Structures are given as structure tokens and as C-alpha cells.
């Protein structure tokens, strides 16, 4: 299996605002993350809010410079490319933004915004050809010609989200990083768009990184899933395995917290403890202060969790935990 796009030991740090009495501090959004997208396959990226999913997506597309490590597309480092080469790559590497409102121009019609990538990257097409492509794609994402003439604010939230997806797909990219592409959508439109993405990926022509906190969606669409916790990959596995028997206690908690029709709230694992921040990553295993498994361990074992950072080990099922579940 061929790796199309991959991160090697990518670290991203930001300067965070200082507190009342101290100076600005460094926030580590990603900590030596390695992740590989296989050509024609869909990888799901899940994890708690603030765990670094969007940052990783942006780093993979060259939109966020790593503080350390590197990103390779077709085995070539993005950092070594000229601005001109990067611009040409834009067509092949597309991002669907998490916030559709922020990524659309407020005063241009949505039709004009969807056609734009074609104007830039496919100048050989005639105007009529471009318009036909736009109309066809809009229809596939469930929008009609009347929507094309509107401004973003004249559309509903879900309609705007579909415009953003259409714009990312119009120039037939090779890789799409879709950051929460369907979270603003109701289930029937979700189904329609996810089926569209499934069709595009199952033909093998599209490689997709699907960032989502919706495990049900990830389960449907992805061959493989990586779980991020405080800027580190804590588990990576083929989807059916991960869902059937999660090995990292965090993955386990994540799976059991999904609200479902007909399952009472009480039957869930609710994590205890302070919510973590990447400003103050716990020592050892970053999850230990909230880990139900840690709580059940004896002292010598606990000490290991507190002091030694577990490495991500194993293939095809990898887990970063000293005491993984099912052992």
C-alpha cells in the first residue's frame, strides 16, 4: 500500500497568551505525530476538542508550518517546495474548513465561489463547461440552481456547509482533508454527502482524511481510525477492530459516550478529573489523570503511567498505553 501524504514526527507549537502574572507560554498542539494517508483510502481522525485535529489537518496540507518534523506528499517534503510548486499543489490538496461561515466570502454569490477553483486550476475549460460542472456538483450535494445565485448569509447553515464541500471537490483533488464536514448537517443530508464521499473514495481516486468527533460517521466511512489525545496519537487501528475492542482507555470512554436513541444516559462511562489543556500536558501518559484504568492500578504500575510516556506500538493495531485493554 502506497503512502500518498504523511506526517513524520510533526510537532506544532503556538505561543499562548500569558496569565495575570506570567509571560506568554508555549502551547504544544501536536507532539511528534506520525500519520500516513494511503492512496485511495479514508482515514478517520477523532479525539477530544482541542486535541490538535484541525492543526494536524492543516499541517498535512502545508497550511501550518511544523515547529519540528516534516510532511511528505508523494515522498517529497512540502517544506522543500517553491511557492509556485505549492500553489500548483493546492488543486491536488484540498481542505474543507470546520467553520463554513469563516471560509466563504460574505459578498460573493456561492456559484461564483464554487467555480473559482476551476478558473484558477482549469483555465482550459470553457465558461459553459465550468458552469455545467458547477451545476452538476451542486446538485450532487443537494443544492439547486437557485442556491447558486444567493449570498452565503441567505443560506441555512447546512446549505453553506455543502457549498464549502462542493468548492473543495470541484477541481477533482487527490487528497481532501475534511474537517468536521457534516457536523452541521442533519442526518439525511449527512447520509447523502457521506455516500458521495464514499463513492469518490471507493473509486480509488480520492484519498480522504476525515476529521470528526462523530464516531458514527467515522465508523461508516473510514477503513482506519487514528485517535488523538492532547496532541498525540494514542491509538490507531482498522475501524472494525477499534470499534469492536478499543485498546486505549480513552478510546473506550469515547465510544461509550456516544448518545444513542434508546440508550439511557446512565449506562455510560463518564470521564472524571480536570479537563486537560495542551498548556499543561500531564507527565508520563497524558491521559493518566482521567484514566479509569490508572485509577484501578496499584502503586508501582501507576508510577509508570505518571512518569513514562508510552510509545505508539503495534501494527496494524497500534496503541500508546502501558496497560492496554484486552491484555
Amino acid at each position, binding site marked *: 500500500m502506497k503512502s500518498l501524504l504523511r506526517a513524520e514526527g510533526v510537532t506544532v507549537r503556538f505561543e499562548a497568551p500569558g496569565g495575570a502574572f506570567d509571560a506568554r507560554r508555549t502551547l504544544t498542539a501536536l507532539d511528534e505525530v506520525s500519520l500516513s494517508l494511503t492512496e485511495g483510502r479514508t482515514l478517520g481522525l477523532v479525539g*477530544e*476538542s482541542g486535541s490538535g485535529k484541525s492543526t494536524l489537518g492543516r499541517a498535512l496540507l502545508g497550511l501550518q508550518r511544523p515547529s519540528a518534523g516534516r510532511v511528505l506528499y508523494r515522498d517529497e517534503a512540502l517544506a522543500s517546495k517553491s511557492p509556485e510548486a505549492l500553489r500548483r499543489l493546492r488543486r491536488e490538496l484540498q481542505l474543507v474548513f470546520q467553520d463554513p461561515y469563516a471560509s466563504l466570502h460574505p459578498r460573493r454569490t456561492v456559484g461564483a465561489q464554487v467555480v473559482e477553483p476551476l478558473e484558477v486550476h482549469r483555465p482550459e475549460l470553457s465558461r459553459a463547461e465550468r458552469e455545467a460542472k458547477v451545476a452538476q456538483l451542486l446538485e450532487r450535494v443537494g443544492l439547486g440552481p*437557485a442556491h447558486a445565485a444567493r449570498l452565503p448569509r441567505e443560506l441555512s447553515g447546512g446549505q453553506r456547509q455543502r457549498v464549502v464541500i462542493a468548492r473543495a471537490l470541484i477541481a477533482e483533488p487527490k487528497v481532501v482533508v475534511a474537517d468536521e464536514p457534516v457536523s452541521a448537517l442533519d442526518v*439525511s443530508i*449527512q447520509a447523502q454527502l457521506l455516500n458521495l464521499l464514499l463513492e469518490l473514495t471507493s473509486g480509488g481516486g480520492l484519498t480522504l482524511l476525515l476529521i470528526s*468527533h462523530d464516531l458514527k460517521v467515522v465508523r*461508516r466511512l473510514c477503513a482506519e481510525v487514528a485517535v488523538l489525545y492532547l496532541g498525540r496519537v494514542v491509538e490507531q487501528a482498522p475501524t472494525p477492530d477499534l470499534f469492536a475492542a478499543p485498546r486505549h482507555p480513552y478510546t473506550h470512554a469515547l465510544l461509550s459516550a456516544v*448518545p444513542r436513541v434508546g440508550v439511557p444516559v446512565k449506562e455510560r462511562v463518564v470521564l472524571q478529573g480536570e479537563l486537560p489543556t495542551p498548556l499543561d500536558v500531564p507527565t508520563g501518559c497524558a491521559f493518566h489523570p482521567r484514566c479509569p484504568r490508572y485509577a484501578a492500578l496499584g502503586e508501582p504500575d501507576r508510577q509508570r503511567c505518571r512518569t513514562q510516556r508510552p510509545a505508539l506500538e503495534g501494527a496494524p493495531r497500534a496503541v500508546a498505553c502501558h496497560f492496554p485493554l484486552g491484555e
Partner: protein
Amino acid sequence: MSALLEVTGLTVRFGALAAVEDVTFSVPEGGTVGLVGESGSGKSVTALAVMGLLDGASVEGAVRFQGEALLELPPRRLQALRGRSLAMVFQDPGASLNPAQRVLTQLAEPLRLHLRIPKADAEARAVSLLEAVGVGDAARRAKAYPHELSGGLQQRAMIAMALACGPALLIADEPTTALDVTVQAQVMALLRQVQAERRMGLLLISHDLGLVAESCAELVVLYAGQVVERGPTAEVLRAPRHPYTRGLLASTPTLEGQGRLEEIPGAVPELSAMPKGCRFAERCPQAQAACRAAPVPLDGGVRCLFPLGGGR
């Protein structure tokens, strides 16, 4: 329970096109009502009309909130209400956070303005609100600008902002879409707690039927701008009577299967091409000629001539 918010016959038009038509529902004090429906069905427009935040639209009908007729209020009075007793979490974080202002300032400002709390106290309160919605190291994070926060942190900042002045009614438009499930559970627990303590009413707009099922006593299902079904959530979800509600349930992904999801075939009709009869008929597996002939009234909680389970 007395009604905190009563919406009667609400109709919203953009030019000649009605995005919301004759919508009626109420939210009791301390209660939670869920508003669900396909994308473009009019959920946000309904919410914005209640808040008096739709410009360029014509709004008809009646909205009573704590005994006041909102649609008739002078703009200044409405604005005062909006800051204090009537709050909303908007669907787009990007549209409601000011990119040029620190989150702390944005949170503390309304407290100073509406509750006349001194700056230092307002800021302390803002920080504790952020903690309550699950923002770790809140004192420091509060100093960030919105773009320095992840999507989920932005969304929680908006929820904190909406709760800041202790509203009597919170309208939350897809408030947890950017949150992972563990944080979502925490935020929903906070909302439940606020509701229990202060009898706050909650209108929860969501496409997540799982979330609605566990949070809302009552459910209102919108389709193409009309209420097509409403009733106690448990009942509606256990035995939906409108074919659209059933389709919505069937296309809900579960944690089990893989591959294609069931879709409701077709799309919502465009505003400019609303059929005269039942608006769902085009996509309905059991539509008959009578469905297309004339508008279908909402009757016994369902807008369907041939509801599932019979009885009409």
C-alpha cells in the same frame, strides 16, 4: 407548567418566499423542547425570528415571552431583553465571536453592561463560566483571541457567553456540533443543571436525534418550513407518525453498520417551488393523489393524511 415562550402562527418571508409558515409551539419554564428537521427546513430562521434578529424579512404571527409580545416591542426594549433574559447560541461560531476581541472581554462586557458588575468581578465570573463549560486552564485561555481557539473551544465560549447573564430562555442552535461526545455530555449536563436551578427554558435545535432523545421532553419536527409532527419526544421517536420523521430516524447512523447510509431520496423543495399540497409528497413512499391536491393541516400532532399507525 406555565409557558415561558409561546410562538403562534409564525410566518417568515424573504421577499415573496416563505421560509417558515404558520409555526406554533411553546417552551415551558424549566422545560426543554427540541426542534429538528432537515437542513433548510427553517429551524434557524424560526429561532432568529423569535430573537428579533432577522433583518430584511417580514415576520408575522405572535411571539409571547414572559407575557410580552416580542414582535411588537420597540427595538431598544428587545435589545435589553436579548442581553439578559433571552439568549441564543448561534449555529456559526465565526459569525458571533468578534475576531478582534479577546474572549474574556467578549464574555465580561455583557455582564458589565446588563448587570452593572464591576470589571474585575465580571472577568472573574466570565472565567468561572468557561470552567463550567469544560474549558481547562480557563483564566489563561480566556485571554486568547477566537482564532487561537479550536472549533470546540469557540463553541464553548459562545455557550458561556449565552449563559452569562442568567437567561430565562436559551435558544441553542446546534450548540454541540463542534464538540466531541465527552465534552458534549458535560455541556448538556451543565445546561440541565442550570435549568433545574433557575428554571431556564431551553429550545434545542439539533439534527442529532440521539442528543434530542436524551435532552428534550417535547419534540417539534419541521419540514420545508412547516411543523409536520410534534409530541412527547419518546413517543415520536418510538413510533413516528409522519413518514418524514420515520425517514429521519432511518437515516440516523448507528455505531454498528458500515457503508452506505439509507437516504431519504430527493431533496427539500426550493422555497420558490413549494408544492400546493403536502410538501413531502414528492419524496414520500406512500403519497397518493389526495396528498398533492390541497394543503394538509396539522391535525392531532401530525401533518399527514395517511399517518403511520393509522388513526386520522
